[in-house]
């Protein structure tokens, strides 16, 4: 019997992914630990290792296939001595079985799978579903995330030819319920929901995404990557559900720059070079520990105050933004932060971060100083409570001891989740951050 190689769940929440690249081809011999394929999840590209040894008998899902459900058979491995041809023969007839019990849908691989003969309701549960769902494509999410919908809503959508993924659910947790289907028209997204009797003061329901037609201008359209989709979803969620307040301070950098060159001179022999950013990470972590009311998470029912500052650092990669985390940055030496960031950012650019290396974090830091951006307001990375946006350090006329002098100054803007953090608390954090950066020895002590 050939071994079925199934789409792996590379993170606890992964439901589907893109089979980005095969690293083996049919006929190759593989041993346990060999890299088989690169799989792109919502945030990272990960390598998929072989657990069994044998020969790749058949590749069932071509590289570049999107939305391959976890559990789908993607290849067959013939074990030693097994006839590769024999292994591949049944493969053609084998129907890929999804982990959740044989639901067919948009996520299925492109391989032709003969549709089962309909034997009538009750022949077996897997077929019952197919019989009940005569047109399964209509009930399945068209793209991206799982669509939450009640069984009745799914069936109604199917019967009316409505694309569930275009609807905005009004049930608990955004679940699409019957009422949402009743208000939708087939074949087109539902117009923005108008809450009939929303209580005073309650935010209006988020409007359904507007689908814009592409204007008739020469252009190139590239399909959204899973990472881009995730960025879009999370930032939209943040701006729509988290009330941001922005607090800006100007921070004099001269002492920090001086300390940095002194430290770097000392660290040269160890091959470590501190960046300003490394020091700002540490300063933010120290400030958060000093003002714990800003090191928080708003859950809807609870206000969680963290006892450690894990700083997510925004890193731009060719495919999009990702935020590797420096855990417990307050307790780490600057040299340790520098080394860690260098390594994390490097792997982030290659798309090789593990989920636990970019998921979590208690606050974020985003630095656009290297692009000469003077000042900006960043979007909070939920469920975190704040993000610090760092502008360029530049020589400015600056009043020091009542006289006009030239100083290196940067503008830093904190964005705070106003549900969890009051203005005064945010201001305290900005003060602490400014003080630590302007008197950098304080954060080393």
């Amino acid at each position, binding site marked *: 019997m050939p071994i079925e190689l199934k789409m792996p769940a590379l993170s606890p929440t992964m439901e589907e992914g893109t089979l980005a690249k095969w690293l083996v081809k049919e006929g190759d011999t593989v041993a346990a630990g060999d890299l088989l394929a690169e799989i792109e999840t919502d945030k990272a590209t990960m390598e998929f290792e072989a657990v069994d040894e044998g020969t790749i008998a058949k590749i069932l899902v071509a590289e570049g296939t999107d939305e391959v459900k976890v559990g789908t058979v993607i290849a067959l491995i013939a074990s030693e001595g097994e006839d590769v041809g024999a292994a591949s023969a049944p493969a053609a007839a084998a129907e890929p079985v999804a982990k959740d019990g044989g639901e067919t849908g948009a996520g299925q691989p492109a391989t032709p799978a003969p549709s089962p003969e309909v034997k009538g*309701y*009750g022949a077996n*549960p897997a077929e*019952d*579903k197919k019989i*009940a769902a005569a047109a399964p494509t209509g009930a399945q999410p068209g793209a991206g995330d799982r669509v939450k919908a*009640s*069984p*009745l*809503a799914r*069936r*109604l959508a199917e*019967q009316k030819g409505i694309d569930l993924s275009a609807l905005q659910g*009004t*049930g*608990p947790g955004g679940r699409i*319920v*019957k009422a949402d289907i009743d208000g939708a028209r087939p074949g087109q997204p539902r117009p923005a929901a108008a809450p*009939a*009797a*929303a*209580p005073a*003061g*309650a*935010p209006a329901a988020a409007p359904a995404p507007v689908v814009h037609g592409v204007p008739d201008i020469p252009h190139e359209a590239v399909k959204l990557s899973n990472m881009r989709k995730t960025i879009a979803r999370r930032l939209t969620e943040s701006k729509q559900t988290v009330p941001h307040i922005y607090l800006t301070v100007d921070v004099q950098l001269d002492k920090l720059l001086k300390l940095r060159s002194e430290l770097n001179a000392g660290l040269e022999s160890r091959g470590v070079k501190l960046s300003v950013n490394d020091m700002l990470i540490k300063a933010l972590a120290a400030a958060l520990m000093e003002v714990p009311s800003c090191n928080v998470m708003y859950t809807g029912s609870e206000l969680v105050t963290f006892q450690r500052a894990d700083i997510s650092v925004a890193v731009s990669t060719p495919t999009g933004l990702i935020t590797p985390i420096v855990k417990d940055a307050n307790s780490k030496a600057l040299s340790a932060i520098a080394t860690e960031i260098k390594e994390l950012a490097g792997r982030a650019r290659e798309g090789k971060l593990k989920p636990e290396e970019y998921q979590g974090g208690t606050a974020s830091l985003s630095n656009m100083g290297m692009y000469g951006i003077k000042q900006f307001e960043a979007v909070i990375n939920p469920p975190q409570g704040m993000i610090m946006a760092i502008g360029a350090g530049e020589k400015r006329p600056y009043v020091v001891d009542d006289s006009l002098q030239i100083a290196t100054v940067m503008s830093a803007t904190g964005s705070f989740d106003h549900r969890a953090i009051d203005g005064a608390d945010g201001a305290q954090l900005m003060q602490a951050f400014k003080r630590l950066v302007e008197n950098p020895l304080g954060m080393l002590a």
Partner: protein
Amino acid sequence: MADTYDLIVLGSGPGGYVAAIRASQLGLKTAIVEREKLGGICLNWGCIPTKALLRTSEINHYLTHASAYGLSAEKVSFDLAKIVDRSRKVAGQLNAGVKGLMKKNKVTVVEGDGALKGKGVLTVTKDGKTTELNAKHIIVATGARARDLPFAKADGKRIWTYRHAMVPSEMPSKLLVIGSGAIGVEFASFYSDMGAEVTIVEMLDRILPVEDEEVSAFVHKALTKQGMKIHVSSGVEKIETGASGVKATLKGGATEEFSHCIVAIGIVPNTENIGIEALGIETNRGHIVTDGYGRTNVEGVYAIGDVTGPPWLAHKASHEGVVCVEAIAGKKPHPFETWNIPGCTYSRPQVASVGLTEAKAKEAGHEVKTGKFPFIGNGKAIALGEAEGFIKTVFDAKTGELLGAHMVGAEVTELIQGYAIARQLETTEEDLMHTVFPHPTLSEMMHESVLDAYGRALHY
């Protein structure tokens, strides 16, 4: 300086006290005003004490039918004062429980008659003294009371309301029950099982008129078999009270004498003397008009429960209270709707239902598929010696939506929530068919009824 609250709830029934607890959970400074006992009618004079009485009559029924189970019980007798006393103790225990809940949740309890004085102002009068309370939001949860027959005012001696019927000083020998809604049928069942000769008179063409027609017919037959007399499409035109009982003149002119009479012809909302007229709060047939969040036409004034209209049920009031308070606190609750409120009648046999009856479903334009499974096909029911009853389900033939479920028989009041959950989650027949029901239980009939609607029942 008057005391100031975020929220004052007027009335502490199952709507009011639940609203107060939820408000307190959400951080609102809350007071509750009650003129009688905490817990309102439900737990002092309604749902709970009647269940205590009906438990007694149920056990009495088993004792007098002990031989059916291989037991012998001779000289079964009862002490009415003790039965009533038990029922009052049960109510008392729960009343104390609500007191404890108010304390635990830091809800200020103000005793006295409350009345709206203006926007955000409420006066409470007790023993001639009036105090003023202020609040940003005021919820009216004053409930309802029994409707009187104009020509036969209840006197507590021969003519009773539910309230008198709950604390009888003597057992009626021959009882007339006017009205066959849940309250009428429950008392009829209690007194009949305790040995009284019972007659029910109903204006409409069937008893339990809000239930599915098949359920009404089944109960009619079951009660008649127990010895009750039932007159439907009838009515009482005159009641003459004598020293030893009442003489009732029924529609058509026939007269009959009874030792006692219970009037259970519906309820009227308690909207008098609470200041709603002066504020211009809109009412419809006496009931306060509200939206899905309990808001009246006057800002800052809300209403929940019986005072807002049917269904007059404790669980409806509680749910409305929670939704109303969550909206006040700026949460985003789903607006209150009545499409999925189960109703229960604790007679013998019990009745429970949720959603549309078959007739109502057809009226609403649904093409329906119905399923029905009898108790006689269920192992547990036979073992219990309770093989009478059925479970009926009504589906939309096109979509598989469970439009309604209707049950009659032993313990069905404990079963109905299963269908309520199914409806709330919008399951279809498919999900219900794929659900595993434990054996041996009465709940298996819920499964079978669904299967039957699609021609797949296994055990009948």
